[in-house]
């Protein structure tokens, strides 16, 4: 089998055959290269006024755009469609019957579904290499952007594949979010430096700039590539877990904590080295260091719910199996409260980045830590209640969490709209009842007291814990009152 690598991979083999096999692949790519090569040659020959080197340099840039389109547009669409088709036709169940390692199976999707894309990209790369040489440009100016783009494309394919494994509409959601990011002129990149680091081949010092002026891979790209590789590897493992057991979460507690740690590290680097990573468009966008820190912290708090949820789910499963006297008992999972503590510690690892520009804020730091901890405890107990009930109502938990974040702002806005006083501030102490509002007030002090908001967060967490622990007692009492009398 090793002799046939990589097509000893059954899923890669099947998807290659579904696309017509080697013969069709070579024919399609050959035709593509021939047409493109002819067009390039014709344009150079038909413009005697333009020096060939200039025309070929222009073509090299155009080929990089082609490469971008092939890798990102066609590549993402193909890999998502391959998995969607297998899921709809239940072929994926047939795959799961085979003794194929999940990682090898996911790799098979990437390789088999993308076989045509990879072949076209190779053809484009070779054509580009020729045009680049014709333009008397150093080969590295073509090779380096292609390597960067290939790694970035592999990362994006894994993200899309992961999203497809999580939910059939996952890739659609990512596409919509990307569209929103475009229509808002990339504002999300200004407030989420972690994301900026990950997409740096397309913004900041882009691959196009690399091609035009640079040659080697600088430190900024090295960081971006490392971040893409780290997060890509975690998501790949998540996709493989989802392939293996579709009913189980993609991330177990440990993997989710590793994912959170990677995200925090990437965000911290992005915040700390903003000048290097910031997008080249809208260089004068007035988003401050504090805003980047706060928005990163807020997103990290939400992501911290992933390990907490994984732990709550595993704990509920363990308790249920124990209650059922399972002959194959599970090993005791990571305690959810410990997962909360770890997740909170990781989220708070962003604090040192903020403290560089805002020293002497010990009290603010402590209150921030308390806010994060209370929020995660609140989420943890809500999730434990839901998973104890078999996982129904997860949507309601999401809604409730969003409500606790957004509702205080909405109430504040309504209060402001209803008041007659002109000097009334838009946001008042009410907003501090939201974790986000509380963080904003803590770090961008408008001299409002944050104690009531903090107490509210503590009360929410305590209430959720009370509901979790008192729930079974209440249910038992209700059952006893309803139960028929035993003789």
């Amino acid at each position: 089998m090793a002799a046939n690598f990589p097509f000893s991979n059954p899923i890669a083999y099947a998807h290659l055959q579904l696309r017509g096999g080697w013969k069709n692949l070579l024919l399609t790519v050959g035709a593509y290269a021939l047409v493109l090569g002819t067009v390039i040659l014709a344009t150079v020959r038909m413009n005697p006024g333009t020096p060939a080197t200039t025309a070929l340099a222009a073509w090299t840039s155009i080929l990089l755009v082609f490469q971008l389109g092939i890798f990102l547009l066609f590549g993402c669409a193909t890999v998502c469609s391959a998995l969607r088709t297998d899921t709809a036709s239940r072929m994926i169940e047939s795959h799961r019957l085979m003794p194929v390692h999940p990682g090898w199976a996911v790799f098979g999707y990437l390789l088999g579904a993308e076989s045509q894309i990879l072949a076209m990209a190779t053809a484009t790369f070779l054509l580009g290499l020729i045009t680049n040489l014709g333009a008397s440009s150093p080969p590295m100016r073509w090779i380096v952007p292609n390597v960067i783009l290939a790694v970035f494309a592999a990362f994006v394919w894994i993200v899309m594949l992961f999203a497809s494994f999580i939910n059939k509409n996952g890739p659609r959601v990512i596409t919509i979010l990307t569209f929103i990011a475009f229509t808002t002129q990339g504002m999300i990149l200004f407030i989420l430096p972690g994301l900026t680091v990950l997409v740096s081949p397309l913004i900041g010092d882009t691959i196009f700039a690399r091609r035009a002026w640079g040659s080697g891979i600088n430190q900024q790209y090295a960081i971006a590539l490392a971040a893409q590789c780290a997060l890509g590897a975690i998501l790949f493992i998540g996709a493989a877990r989802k392939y293996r057991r579709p009913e189980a979460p993609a991330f177990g507690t440990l993997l989710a904590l590793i994912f959170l740690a990677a995200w925090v590290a990437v965000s911290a680097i992005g915040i700390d080295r903003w000048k290097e990573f910031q997008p080249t468009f809208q260089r004068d966008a007035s988003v401050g260091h504090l805003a980047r820190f706060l928005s990163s912290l807020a997103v990290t708090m939400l992501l911290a719910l992933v390990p907490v949820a994984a732990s709550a789910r595993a704990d509920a499963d363990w308790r249920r199996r124990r209650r059922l006297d399972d002959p194959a008992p599970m090993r005791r999972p990571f305690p959810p409260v410990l997962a909360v503590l770890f997740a909170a510690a990781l989220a708070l690892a962003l604090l040192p980045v903020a403290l560089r520009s805002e020293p002497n804020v010990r009290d603010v730091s402590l209150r921030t830590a308390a806010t994060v901890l209370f929020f995660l405890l609140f989420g943890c107990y809500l999730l434990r209640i839901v998973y104890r009930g078999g996982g129904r109502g997860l949507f309601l938990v999401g809604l409730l969490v969003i409500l606790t974040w957004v509702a205080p702002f909405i109430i504040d806005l309504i209060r402001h709209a209803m008041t007659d006083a002109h000097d009334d501030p838009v946001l008042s102490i009410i907003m501090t009842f939201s974790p986000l509002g509380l963080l904003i007030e803590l770090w961008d002090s408008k001299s409002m007291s944050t104690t009531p908001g903090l107490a509210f967060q503590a009360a929410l967490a305590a209430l959720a814990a009370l509901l979790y622990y008192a729930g079974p007692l209440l249910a038992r009492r209700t059952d006893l009152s309803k139960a028929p009398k035993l003789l």
Partner: protein
Amino acid sequence: MASFFDQEHVNLALLETTAGTAHPDTLLSLDRVRVAFGPLIAVRDVSFNLRSGQLLGLIGPNGAGKTTLLRAIVGLQPLARGIINVCDLPAGPGALPPKRFLGFTPDTPAVYEELTVRKFLRFIALGYDLDPAQIDERVDFWLEKVWLAEKADQKIKALSRGMRQRLGIARTLLPNPRVVLLDEPAAGLDPAGRVQFRQLLCDLRDQGKALIVSSHILADMADYCTHIAIMAQGAFLRFGTVADVAAESASPGSDGNSRCRYTLILARFVADAREILARLPGVADLQMDRQRFTFDFLNDPEQAADLLAAIVQQRLPVASFSPNAPGLEEAYLRAGIRQVD
């Protein structure tokens, strides 16, 4: 033959794990397996051992949990609790090693419509890491065996339902699994195909494989199964060798006496025959189809002779009167399942 279904191994929460007591030939063992979909329990604490050369027929109405049980065994359905061992290896979702020994054909096998039959089976061979030198030979062997050799280079989308069913069986048997699970395998087959398929099952059984076949064609199952399980609401209602289960159709009635089903055919239609028969002592569960009547009565030739005399005395024109031979259909109906698929 010693029954592989020990009474206490089935549906009893009290029982000890079967793992320690399994026979050395045991290829598949289930210990208190439960599958739940939220509050609904689809498979209810099922335990049994299946040995080499045994073929278990799984029968029951729609929604009884047959398919869910088969899917749980092959690891497509997570367990709420319980242990499944395949060839002494713990099975379940995500467990890779037992998959080498398991073959499963669902009721509608999933296929890649755009692939040819041969390429599809090559893909399966790769999935089971078969020796590349043997792949083509094995593919040809199984195509021949399931009567698809002529269709080898046709695209699967051009195959009929029955042919797809055969392809599904070839897909299952290609890696030579030791435990074979087939869900409604004969559903799409024509009469000739069913006969050939029956022979194939007997061959596999005789080769020492352990098989579970879920089917609604009870007459066929009596021919090739060594054991039968009647399933309803996720639990096994009856289990044992075919003869044991069939014999249970002559089970004791509420009065403690053994009862069985009788068929009475009248020479001509008599309008009040039903009322007359219903009045006779001991006759129960009377069913009528014009001149043909079936009913429960004591499983005793003397008592049956007296009943026949009483019927004749009532001036009913008896053309035929006989006890029904014990069979799976009887056993199935007697298991308290009225919904027949």
